[in-house]
Every structure is written in structure tokens, then in C-alpha cells.
């Protein structure tokens, strides 16, 4: 499951990846005609809408790819860097950059691809850019407060609008296709002789537009993979037709007392319940976090039995089945949930009768386990519970 940084790709190797990604980026920019400032400026005067076409198609393609890879579970979309926003600085910065675009005829990326093929104006643009950053850096104390103002964090745009991700994707694709059609008409009117769109094969372009819109409709219909799987594992039919492995209360108690290294206790109860009382060396992981890559390496250890502890059997079963759906092995649920364990082992007042031959031994074991586990709970509370290392976050941004 992507992304492969930092587990599979080291920081050093990542720089080599950056170089190759950059080569692809520079090659495509130049092939698209982005090394030509007149072509770039054309979008603002209506004689050449290349910028809009390339830019929007790229954004829609990459967005669709991220959504599809996420749906099929090939990409952890939570691990991708989402650029945070400081609203006012973003707007002011954008306005300054827009003025730079119309005066300079490039943006930074395109100026580099222009300089690469010998455009002198591109080289001057880069030189100006260096000067601009230097000026910004030297005068930074004048506006450092403004620079940090109105932070909104890594806010997703569909959350801001209060709609689903799929609906937003559909709307964006629709806007893009409409903009392509309208701007092509404008371009042919403004630039009767040499509009780039005069060479387009209309039927193919219309077909591509229809495919894009169909993809948009698909995004509305497809629930994201998370919702889909969460619904699936909570359906009664699905639960009853998929058996689970159960670990008995005494067995878990024994393994805890034994400090067995090859079990991992996953507590899926709410953080509040977990904070009130929890088993020693357990991890409180909410079901929705099962999808995230940060726990993937912990869940993937095959020789370690993952024991799921929840409020009750039903919650444990659906958590179990979800982990199974996600491809993890060697799972078990705790018989009866946390409360059953609490009653049987941790609460001393009335021993639960087993009615068996070995009742005396069982009671002795449980009394012993109670003392030890209670002490372990106190100890691990003092040390803090987290034993499994979380993966570090990806850094990005300009």
C-alpha cells in the first residue's frame, strides 16, 4: 500500500525518486508548451487556453487516481500530505502571484522548463524569483504576524462545503469539462486564425469529456472504501456467516500474567472507557484507524496474535472481520468483551463459578491473576500505555 515513504523508501532514495519525478514533470511541461510565455499568457486574453486545459486535466486526473487507488486499498489517502492553509496569506499570496503571472508570463515551474530549453526570459524570471524570496526573507519581521494569521489547518474542501468527497469530485469534473467546452468556443472567436483548438478532433474530445463525466458519476455512486467496508462488517448476515476465533478469558489472563510477547491487545472501546480502565500493554485503536498506514506494520506481524477487546462480542466481531478484510492474520476476540474479563478476573468480590472439576484450581489461578494484572495495570498507567510505535508523518509542501 502506498505511499512507500518512509518505510520502503529511505530519505536518501527519496531524493533520487524526486529527481525522476522532476524529469517527468519537466518533460511534460515542455511538451505541453508551458515553456512558452506567450502561450501561458494567452489564457488571460482568450487567444490560447492551453494553461487551463493542461492544468485542469492534470488536477482531475491526479484527483481521480487518488480516489480510485484509495478505493481499492492501494493507497493510504490519510498518509498523503495535505497542504494546510492560512486563509488571508493564501489569498494575498495568490493575488501577488497572479500579478507576477501576467507580468512575467511564467510561474516558477514553467519558468524552469523554459530556461531548460534556452528561453532567456525564463532565466530572468528565475533570477527575479530568487530576488523575491530574498526580499521576503529579509523583510520577514514586518509581516511575520500576518504570515501566521487565519490558520485553517489541512482542511479538505468537501468538508468545508459540507458535501461528500464523491459529490465534490463529480462537481469538479463537471466544471472542468464545461470550462473546456466554453473556453474552446471563446478561443476560436478571439483567435480565428491560429487558435490551438482549431486542430482538435472534436469527436474524440467529446468522447473523452463523456468518459470523464461518467467517472464523475461513478465517484458519487461509489462510497469510499472505508464506508463500504465498515458497512459490510456490521451487517448481521455477514457477521453470522463469518466465524471468528475466540480467546477465553482465562487464556488471555494467563498470557498477560506470563507477559507473552506474541500477543497484541487491541482495545477498540472509546477513549473514555479505555482511559477509565484498560488491560496492561494494550493499544486503544478506533476502528476507523484500522485503515491507516500508521498501524499497518504493527498489525502485519504474523506471529503476533492480535486480541481484540471491545465493549461486547458484537463490536469485537465486526472489528475482527474488518481486520480480516484488510488482509491481517492471526486474530482473536476476547470472549464476552472487556466487562466479562473485568468481572471474571479483575473484580474480586464473587468468584464466577465454573462448576467443573478444576474449580478450586481455577479460582486460585484467578485470584493470583487478579493480583498480578491489577499491579500491571497500575504500572502501565504510570508509564503510559503506548507500546507500538506510530509511523512518522510525511512532510511536504513548498
Amino acid at each position, binding site marked *: 500500500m502506498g*505511499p512507500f515513504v518512509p518505510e520502503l523508501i529511505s530519505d536518501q532514495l527519496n531524493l533520487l525518486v524526486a529527481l525522476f519525478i522532476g524529469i517527468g514533470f519537466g518533460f511534460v511541461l515542455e511538451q505541453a508548451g508551458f515553456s512558452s510565455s*506567450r502561450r501561458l499568457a494567452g489564457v488571460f486574453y482568450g487567444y490560447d487556453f492551453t494553461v487551463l486545459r493542461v492544468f485542469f486535466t492534470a488536477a482531475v486526473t*491526479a484527483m481521480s487516481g487518488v480516489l480510485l487507488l484509495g478505493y481499492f486499498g492501494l493507497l493510504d489517502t490519510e498518509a*498523503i500530505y495535505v497542504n494546510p492553509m492560512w486563509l488571508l496569506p493564501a489569498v494575498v499570496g495568490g493575488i501577488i*502571484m497572479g500579478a507576477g503571472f*501576467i507580468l512575467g508570463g511564467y510561474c516558477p515551474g514553467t519558468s524552469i522548463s523554459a530556461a531548460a530549453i534556452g528561453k532567456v526570459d525564463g532565466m*530572468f524570471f528565475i533570477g527575479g524569483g530568487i530576488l523575491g524570496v530574498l526580499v521576503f*526573507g529579509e523583510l520577514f519581521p514586518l509581516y511575520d504576524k500576518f504570515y501566521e494569521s487565519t490558520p485553517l489547518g489541512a482542511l479538505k474542501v468537501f468538508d468545508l462545503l459540507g458535501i461528500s468527497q464523491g459529490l465534490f469530485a463529480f462537481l469538479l469534473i463537471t466544471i472542468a469539462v464545461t470550462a473546456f467546452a466554453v473556453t474552446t468556443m471563446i478561443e476560436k472567436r478571439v483567435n480565428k486564425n491560429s487558435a490551438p483548438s482549431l486542430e482538435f478532433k472534436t469527436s474524440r474530445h467529446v468522447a473523452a469529456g463523456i468518459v470523464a463525466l461518467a467517472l464523475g458519476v461513478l465517484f458519487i455512486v461509489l462510497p469510499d472504501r472505508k464506508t463500504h467496508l465498515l458497512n459490510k462488517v456490521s451487517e448481521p448476515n455477514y457477521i453470522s456467516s463469518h466465524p471468528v476465533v475466540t480467546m477465553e478469558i482465562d487464556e488471555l489472563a494467563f498470557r498477560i500474567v506470563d507477559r507473552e510477547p506474541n500477543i497484541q491487545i487491541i482495545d477498540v472501546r472509546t477513549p473514555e472507557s479505555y482511559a477509565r480502565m484498560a488491560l496492561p500493554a494494550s493499544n486503544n485503536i478506533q476502528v476507523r484507524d484500522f485503515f491507516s498506514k500508521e498501524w499497518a506494520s504493527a498489525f502485519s506481524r504474523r506471529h503476533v496474535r492480535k486480541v481484540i477487546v471491545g465493549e461486547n462480542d458484537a463490536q469485537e466481531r465486526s472489528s475482527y472481520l474488518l481486520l480480516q478484510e484488510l488482509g491481517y492474520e492471526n486474530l482473536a476476540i476476547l470472549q464476552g468483551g472487556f466487562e466479562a474479563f473485568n468481572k471474571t478476573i479483575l473484580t474480586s468480590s464473587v468468584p464466577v463459578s465454573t462448576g467443573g472439576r478444576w474449580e478450586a484450581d481455577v479460582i486460585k489461578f484467578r485470584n493470583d491473576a487478579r493480583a498480578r494484572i491489577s499491579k500491571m495495570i497500575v504500572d502501565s498507567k504510570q508509564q503510559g500505555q503506548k507500546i507500538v510505535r506510530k509511523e512518522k508523518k510525511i512532510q511536504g*509542501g513548498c
Partner: protein
Amino acid sequence: MNTKYMNPYLAGFFLGLVLLAALFITGRGLGASGAIKSMVVAAVDGIAPAHAESSSFYGTYVGPGKEHPLKSWLFFEVVGVLIGGFISGLVSDRLKIVTESGPNVKPKIRWLFAAIGGALFGIGAQFARGCTSGAALTGMAVLSTAGFVTMMAIFGSGYAFAYFARKLWIKEKE
């Protein structure tokens, strides 16, 4: 200017795939202005290290325990952009030392305005935490609000200023 450019939608599709590859492999998108920033930070740190470390802007990137500013993902990526652009110019026979400008614009005027435009981008990209590629394009692909806000601000402002800059790009009708 002789060889034809790629169909823009096809180019956009390929650009989208490059961006998707970056997101899929490394978890982060494309960028450009960040590399220019790294160069400036490296230069300031090289010339006046004490000044760089005490500055609240450069100081974030330099100092004990920090990697050299040029050992950054975006700097390597931008070196790649130079190589990739050059290869494209080579295969499409567009390598040529030339200044491109609007009709009736002298090269020196074009250079001046290119540098001014670059400087504005350098400043604006710091406020917006990225430029057209890093903030706007990549941001839109990961559906971040910052991506859409920055994109709209850049293009909205471009259209708003286009009238005043028309002499740089188009022939005025009599």
C-alpha cells in the same frame, strides 16, 4: 516554435499521472517555488550563517542538526525539471537561446518584466506556502481547501491585472 506541442488534454493527463506517481510513491506532490526558497536559504546561510540562524524565516530551515537546505526533495525534483525540460526540447527540436515576448515588446523590457514577475511569484509563494504547482495543482489533486483558494486567487488576480498588462502580450486594436 517549429515543432508542434502535445495536445493539451493529453499533456494534462500525463502531468496528472506524474503528480499521481509522486503522491502514490512518496505521499507528496509536485512543487517548484520551494526549491527556489531552498537555494536562497542555502545562499544566505553560506554567506551569513549567524544572520540566517537568527532570522525567524531562514532560521526554520538552518541550524545545528538540520540537513543542508539543498538536500531537499523539491530541490532534487527541480533539478529533474531542468533535465526533463531539456530532454523534451532536444527531442522536439526546440533548444534555442531566445527571448520570447509579445508583439512590439523589446527584449530588455521583456527581461525586466520577467524578473519583476519572478520576484512577485517569489514573494507571493511564501505567503501562500507554495506556487501554482505546489499549492494550487497538488492542493487541488488532494482536495485541500488551500489548493482551490490559491488557484482561484492566482487566476482571478491574473485576469484582474490582464487589462493593465495587455501591451506586454497583445496588439491593441485601433
